[in-house]
């Protein structure tokens, strides 16, 4: 019996050590260099001309995150992500379909995001900006996503495209970042909005 108790203690110690190794990531924020903190369980809007490069850097930093990447028409190049040090094994991609009407294409994208968030297995989701015909519907959709993201403790990144460089700037968006090319060919990040720090 004392042997069993001893074994149980060892097992507990091992569990704690494994927990310490896995639990290096905070449950509230993702900390990045330059004291930038990306909140978990929130919607983040990215604008600017270096958004994907910055996202690659983010996913390189947090290699163990499960990521769901959805686009109506699949344009991201996985080869480029891998070249920038992103772990593709953790990525699940979805092409939700670019239908003739923009609203139904947005609905399908929203449906995919909602399903992925409900599963509560992805820590990050990436999707293009959502646009709806009327602002009330858009706000309702974003609010639903915000609630689901909060429940799943997942961060949803909305990224721009060449033709749609700006997002909706609706109030459920917790943070807006402008990411552009710096003069030294690096990346400069400007916080345009951060609800947690009162920057609006």
């Amino acid at each position: 019996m004392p042997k069993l108790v001893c074994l149980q203690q060892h097992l507990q110690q091992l569990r704690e050590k494994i927990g310490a190794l896995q639990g290096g990531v905070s449950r509230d924020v993702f900390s990045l260099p330059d004291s930038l903190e990306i909140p978990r369980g929130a919607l983040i809007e990215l604008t600017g001309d270096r958004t994907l490069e910055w996202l690659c850097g983010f996913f390189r930093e947090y290699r163990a995150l499960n990521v769901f990447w959805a686009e109506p028409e699949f344009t991201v190049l996985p080869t480029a992500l891998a070249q920038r040090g992103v772990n593709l094994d953790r990525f699940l991609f979805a092409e939700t379909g670019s239908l003739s009407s923009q609203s139904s294409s947005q609905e399908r994208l929203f449906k995919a995001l909602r399903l992925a968030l409900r599963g509560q297995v992805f820590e990050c989701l990436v999707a293009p900006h959502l646009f709806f015909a009327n602002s009330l519907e858009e706000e309702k959709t974003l609010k639903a996503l915000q609630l689901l993201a909060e429940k799943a403790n997942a961060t949803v990144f909305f990224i721009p495209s060449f033709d749609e460089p700006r997002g909706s700037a609706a109030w459920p968006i917790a943070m807006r970042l402008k990411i552009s090319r710096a003069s030294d060919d690096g990346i400069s990040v400007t916080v345009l909005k951060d609800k947690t720090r009162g920057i609006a």
Partner: protein
Amino acid sequence: MNPLRIACLWFSSPLEADELERFAEACLRFSPQIALRARQTIFIEIGKSRTLFSEETFIQRAQVLLRKFGFRERNITVGGAVRSRAIDALLAARYGTHLPEALPLDALSLVLDPFKESELPTTEKMITALQALGLRSLRDFMSLPPHELPSRFGAEGRLCRLHLERGEFTWPTFVPREVIEESRELADDEQCGTLEPLLFYTKSLLDRLFARLHGRGLRLTRLQARFELERFSTVRKPVHEWDFDLMLPQGSATGVLPILRERWDRDLQREPLEALVIRLRFTVLETAMGYEGQRNFFHAREDQTEKMNSVASHLRESLGAEKVFRASLVEDRIPEKSWRKLEKNEKSAAIDLTDQIPLRPTRLVQPEAIQIAADEVTFRRRRWRIERRSEVERISAHWLDGLQVRNYVRLDLERGPSLWVFEDSNGFFLQGFFE
């Protein structure tokens, strides 16, 4: 050598054809050494698994499994016992004890061969004769002189004595069935004609199906569902079948049910069932190897993977088979051929692209004709000023595909993301963005 510990489960009434085999298949999770007696008893040797679970844990887990198979709903009680000898386990499961003084003479029919039901009429005659002699228990039987048994009761009497004394038997082989299938007949009063009742009955069937798969160390990748409707003359389609080809292997009913719900909801809205369902049947068409590790030992990674597989399969069901995928790299310089969608259950190839090819654009689009002047690029009816050009990268095409040689160059614009353009004999084309 480990001492034998044999668990025996005895069912109060004979089970339906092959039902015991299906339950035994689910019991393979405890031990590969399993034996069946007729349609009423199952033996599991758990001595070799004692480092994995204790006898108490076994009993608790067996109770959970028994609940999944719904014996209680059919008023079938199950007696269980764990002993060192198969014969003692059987007697204890059947009569609650294996002590000879407490066992009636009827128990001799079990003693003759615990793994096989006696088909000889002489066994019954022997028991009647012993009772006529005033014997009441197995202890009385054991008190008879052994040398008198063959002359009075033949070989059977001697065998019973030997088995009670030594208890050694050859363990028969149990081979599970090739096809894993679960079905259920539904009565009229069960009113199964819409989605919710269908899902209700499906859950218990899937629980059993997954218990059997778990016993074999397998996970589900493809499932066939079949509904048979009442055969009225007005019913045009009496059988409905669905084939669920899951993106990633599934190990529990909770992961598969949302996928079934999604498909049935869509299909039954389009084509409602014309009558009540009288039979549900689920057949496993394809499987994948199950988890090797013990669940929840150090971490919950297996559960997390299970959940992830379920979400991925649900997304695939909702968006379309080709629309949800994982990506793997391919050693090819042509950008559109430098990656591919992974087939189901396929692992990605370990390819390191560092310093192998120049940096590729983050977005790749269908080639779009553009005009490039000295320091300006024109596309989508707008002009952009070029700030800087990279060196040219020449990519030779596959002659089989009929593609031409392309000269790629990166253009950094004064404002906006950098462009990735190529030039061939037809002019300049935009193919990507460095966003």
